[in-house]
């Protein structure tokens, strides 16, 4: 048994063990190098796993040699392999920027532990994605959540601690709802393994506890994924957290919530039960589209651009929820693709905010005046990622929107397709406001003053990916196709 067979365990173990080691390193510079190394090793592992899954089918890995239904099993299929690549890839891209990023935006006394907590959050998210055990998922959920609360609280603004506290309260309520759901499902099936539970559920699916379990898990994941109207923790948390943290969470945290929803619906409860009997589409579609409209409209009125991006995330998560709710093949592909694509563009946009804050100290409309001349590359990244957010062809945003609209049409709900297009038009407004201020107002005096390369590089890389993966869709749509077929939800 070579090292290669142990990759699923290493995927989580490397960052999980790396975190305390990182705290022991002590010297900030060394801790940073160590964290970067861990993030890149994790990323390499996730790519190896994705390749393996695409070549040879799902991987089943059992911990400690216990039989799969007794012990904790890691099950990797194309869906979570893609999520693993997204999460670890974002960490690998953003982590190098943290060396200078945390100097400006993290409170002084928390700096030496920043990388430790970041690695813990990474380990938790990877654990959620990789596990095939429903209780193990809860434990990893709490690991990543606790680390997230701490990271948000590290923001230099005092409102960061308040935002973190609200995030903690709402996040704990969400996780506890999921815990109740897991308990109810366990009570009726006597198993915690997802596949085993899925096999046993049809026999008891008419009972009240199972119906309640689905409801509890739906609400819990909705809070974690910030699906409207359970999104209220997000705007403050993303506005006052250090921008690099916002970049990482904006790209991954809500996506993990969406992944949990997909996993529970398709791999545990079964699409037939969830959509045909329990009609969760009637919850997800209205809430998703209401979130898309409300998030986009509110984003237009924001003065602080990080808050604008957070509300735009509410809208984007709404698309994902609605896509899942449409319950057809295109909807499933749209949800999976958008989880990945929105990660790229929102990561890029928040990194732009990190660049601007590094130079100007804040990221409100005022500080963007004339920025097109002052920080041309940074603003270039904003424009590219912004176009992608709108859904302009040849960007990743277009790919997601395409599948989203076609899934709405497939479901026979053409008015909803119009709503989706209309919200994209609102996205034009909130992106254009910034472009207008940056390029078409008189710049304040001052020479060209680009953000440091270490902060700018990750944003440039993500923007490049926004275009490359928007033109060549083999990776995202190809994987999503395979994942959708394996989940078997949609005919």
């Amino acid at each position: 048994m070579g090292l290669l067979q142990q990759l699923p365990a290493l995927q989580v173990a490397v960052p999980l063990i790396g975190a305390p080691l990182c705290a022991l390193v002590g010297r900030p510079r060394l801790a940073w190098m160590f964290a970067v190394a861990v993030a890149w090793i994790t990323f390499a592992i996730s790519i190896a796993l994705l390749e393996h899954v695409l070549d040879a089918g799902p991987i089943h890995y059992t911990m400690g040699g216990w039989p799969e239904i007794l012990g904790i099993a890691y099950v990797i299929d194309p869906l979570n392999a893609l999520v693993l690549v997204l999460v670890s890839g974002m960490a690998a891209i953003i982590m190098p920027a943290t060396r200078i990023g945390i100097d400006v935006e993290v409170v002084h006394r928390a700096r030496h532990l920043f990388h430790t907590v970041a690695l813990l959050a990474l380990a938790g998210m990877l654990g959620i994605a990789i596990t095939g055990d429903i209780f193990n998922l809860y434990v990893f959920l709490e690991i990543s959540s606790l680390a997230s609360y701490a990271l948000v609280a590290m923001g230099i603004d005092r409102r960061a601690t308040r935002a973190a506290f609200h995030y903690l309260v709402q996040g704990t309520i969400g996780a506890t709802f999921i815990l109740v759901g897991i308990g109810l499902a366990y009570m009726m099936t006597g198993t915690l393994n997802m596949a085993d539970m899925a096999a046993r559920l049809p026999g008891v699916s008419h009972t009240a506890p199972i119906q309640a379990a689905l409801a509890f898990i739906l609400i819990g994941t909705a809070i974690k994924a910030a699906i409207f109207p359970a999104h209220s923790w997000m705007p403050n948390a993303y506005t006052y957290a250090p921008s690099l943290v916002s970049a990482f969470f904006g790209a991954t945290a809500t996506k993990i919530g969406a992944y949990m929803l997909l996993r529970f619906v398709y791999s545990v409860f079964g699409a037939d039960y969830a959509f045909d009997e329990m009609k969760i589409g009637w919850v997800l579609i209205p809430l998703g589209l209401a979130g898309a409209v409300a998030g986009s409209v509110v984003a237009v009125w924001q003065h602080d651009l990080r808050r604008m991006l957070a509300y735009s995330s509410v809208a984007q998560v709404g698309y994902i929820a609605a896509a899942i709710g449409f319950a057809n093949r295109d909807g499933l592909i749209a949800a999976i693709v958008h989880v990945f694509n929105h990660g790229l563009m929102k990561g890029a946009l928040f990194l732009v905010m990190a660049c601007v804050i590094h130079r100007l100290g804040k990221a409100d409309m005022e500080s963007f005046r004339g920025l097109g001349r002052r920080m041309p590359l940074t603003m270039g990244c904003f424009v590219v990622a912004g176009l992608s957010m709108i859904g302009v062809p040849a960007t990743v945003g277009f790919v997601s929107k395409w599948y989203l609209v076609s899934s709405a049409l497939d479901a026979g709900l053409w008015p909803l397709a119009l709503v989706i297009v209309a919200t994209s038009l609102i996205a034009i407004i909130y992106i254009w406001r910034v472009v207008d201020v940056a390029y078409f107002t008189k710049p304040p005096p001052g020479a060209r003053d680009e953000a440091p390369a270490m902060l700018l590089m990750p944003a440039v890389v993500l923007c490049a990916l926004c275009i490359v993966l928007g033109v060549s869709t083999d990776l995202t749509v190809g994987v999503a196709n395979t994942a959708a077929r394996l989940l078997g939800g949609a005919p």
Partner: protein
Amino acid sequence: MNVIDFVMGHALQWGSVALLMIGLYIVMTRGNLIKKVAGLNVFQGAVFLFYISIAHVRDGTAPIVHEDAVLYANPLPHVLILTAIVVAVATTSLALALIVRIRESYGSIEEDEMAKVDMG
């Protein structure tokens, strides 16, 4: 099954549902952060009790091997909830640590007073 059986037969579960609602109510209505954390603890405690209640086996004894015992309670939920209790302890300590920092920077732990400080 008549109503009384339905209520009495699930007394433990009704108890945890009641606690769940009380905890949630405290979290939502109190403006004092410490009280919010206390409410959160009640909320989580209700779930712990719920897990313990589903482990119960009629006439079953504690799940420790003993020659006189025939029936045991299901030990798995006990173990699961032990993990969840650890998580709850961690959550509470993090929440309290945050409250300390909020108190340092705002000089208050009341929601309305903090809002006033933020307003200006």
